[in-house]
């Protein structure tokens, strides 16, 4: 079975500083990878996804992530964060049940806290 580990439960950072949220996955087959953001008291919103092709994936709100197959990682980065980026971030991997409906396996979440 696939699994996802987010290495930091909390990441405090000052406004306009760069940030990296780390995600590692375990899988013996090809995977699809995702990052979601959850703002306070809201549902989850897709930030970006990796399906195939270029290992650098750009998403919404200035975020990007790099797929590294040898290190089984999919870290999320932003060069300059804003107060409004304060939220919970989830990494996820797609698992397939072949014609029986797939599902996403989520990491434990990383709380990004941007301070002025």
């Amino acid at each position, binding site marked *: 079975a696939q699994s996802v580990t987010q290495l930091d439960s909390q990441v405090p950072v000052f406004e306009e500083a760069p940030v990296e949220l780390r995600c590692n996955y375990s899988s013996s087959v090809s995977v699809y990878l995702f990052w979601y953001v959850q703002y306070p008291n809201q549902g*989850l919103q*897709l930030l970006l996804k990796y399906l195939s092709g270029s290992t650098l994936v750009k998403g919404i709100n200035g975020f990007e992530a790099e797929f590294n197959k040898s290190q089984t990682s999919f870290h999320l980065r932003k060069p300059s964060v804003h107060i409004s980026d304060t939220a919970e971030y989830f990494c996820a991997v797609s*698992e*397939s049940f072949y014609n029986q409906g797939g599902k996403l396996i*989520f990491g434990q979440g990383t709380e990004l806290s941007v301070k002025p």
Partner: protein
Amino acid sequence: DTAVSQTPKYLVTQMGNDKSIKCEQNLGHDTMYWYKQDSKKFLKIMFSYNNKELIINETVPNRFSPKSPDKAHLNLHINSLELGDSAVYFCASSQENEKGYVNYGYTFGSGTRLTVV
């Protein structure tokens, strides 16, 4: 225009009661899910339905029963509510590719915060 809508948004009820949460999606997706998010924000899948057929049933107490009258609706009924059922419940929908992978991700509802007192 909401893609995945859940009702109610908040639900406060007493132990032992029975309650339902409704979910509807207008995206034409084949698969719908229920996830539970606990107080530590951990997301755990409970059920998934594909074209009204139950596909995934994780280790969930029998008090939880999903019902899918059609592929656009997936409701969650909970009997004999317990304090430990307090959580945020998310409905989601997706469309798998030909290999069964969720390659476009999920679309989530805004969640139902259930508080059992």
